[in-house]
């Protein structure tokens, strides 16, 4: 039996965090959560994740800063940004900093599942 992929969800909104964790656990992933960028970095330092899903607007360290820090540290895990900022600038900035995918709220949980599968598939190549 193949090992479950480990996903970290970083979002300051508990309802979204819990809902995503519920959905992804149901999809068969091993899910961990963090409520801000600082806690996410601590977790990433001690654990290895296959995918990181992060909100942009967060206290202390924003999603943009988090991606930048992760890429500077050489973290391989693909990052999917999830945000209510539906602007071209935000999308471009996220990709420019090294994000691998981008979704805007309201998002379809089923579409998120498909994108995660795709990211995992690409990461294995």
């Amino acid at each position: 039996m193949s090992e479950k992929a480990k996903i970290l969800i970083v979002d300051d909104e508990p309802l979204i965090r819990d809902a995503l964790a519920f959905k992804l656990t149901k999809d068969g992933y091993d899910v961990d959560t963090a409520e801000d960028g600082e806690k996410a970095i601590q977790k990433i330092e001690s654990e290895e994740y296959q995918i990181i899903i992060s909100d942009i607007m967060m206290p202390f360290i924003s999603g943009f800063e988090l991606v930048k820090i992760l890429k500077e540290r050489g973290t391989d895990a693909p990052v999917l940004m999830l945000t209510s900022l539906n602007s071209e600038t935000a999308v471009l900035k996220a990709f420019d900093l090294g994000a691998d995918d981008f979704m805007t709220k309201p998002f379809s949980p089923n579409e998120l599942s498909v994108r995660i599968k795709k990211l995992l598939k690409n990461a294995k190549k």
Partner: protein
Amino acid sequence: MRRFFTETYYFLLALEPRYKIVLFLVIALLLLAAVMVVIVLRERSTKNSVENRERRIKRNAEPIIQEIVFSEYDGAEFKDSIKKINRIVDSALYRRSNMGILNELVLYYHRNLGGEAFTRLEMLYREIGLKQLAQENLKNGDWHIKAKAINDLSTMRMGETLYDILQFTDYPNQNVRYEAQYAAVKLGGKKAMSFLDDLDTPMSEWQQIRLLDQSLKFEYELIDQVGTWLRSTNNSVVVFGLMIMRHLNQYHEKGELLKLLYHKNEKVQEKAIETARELAYSECIESLYEVYELTKQTRIKKQILRAFADLGGSKEVGFLRETIAKEKEYNLVFEAALSLKRMGRRDVLISYKEQELSEKGESIVKHILDDRI
């Protein structure tokens, strides 16, 4: 004990009046402070109890809602979950308030989730009784409760409540009717916009923009009611009709537009000229000349001069040239010069002979010709 009170009484009686006043004030302030402390403690305790109830409901209802939203439920499982949620919110005293908490939870998920989850949340909203609660609030609540109920029903796309919502589109309270008008367009599309046909109350500019934003989805459709709106006695409806005509390219009511150029309301007249210009309605030029002669309003005249730049030809070039030379009003000379520049007729602007322009006119032309500005 009795001796203590007697001695205190005589001691107070013997005090100088100014000390008596100070003592009275101190006692009064102490009493006031005590009352305040009691009120604050009571408020905090009520707030804590409400927060605790809110936390409990969220904690218990959240997993059930997630299960409904993210799982492939069959009918029996769905009904079972609805029963579970109903048990969570059930209370002899707080059922309404509990339902309010649940309502916010469902709306929150709805704002953030899309696709299949979105549809499932709408189903949940209906089955759980939140739609019914909103409809009851529409009938019995204060204005803010009514406005919130309308907003919730339109957010949750409860199309079947459109008829109820339409009853509030001309409601005396502005917030309620604005929410109802917005919800009507959102839920019922262009057909529901017929509430505008006999709307008596005025619409603010912001409300017109909100409705226009909702109407943009009909961009490639013919909106039959535009003519009725342009003939309305409610000036805000007429202005909105003109906005629809202009932004949604509704050319079929050009005849009505021509009549509105002569409208007695300045705002309507200004919007009509603007619309004619935007729609490149050059057949109205003769009417614009007439209006220019009839009106005393500088704003209207300015709009007409601006329209000449987009709609006009050589005749209008001559008119603009003459306006610059003869007009005394600074704003009109400026607008006429600007229109000539927009028509690409710099040659006309530099063709004035010496003494043909006033000192002011000369400076305006010089200013307009200066490409650095």
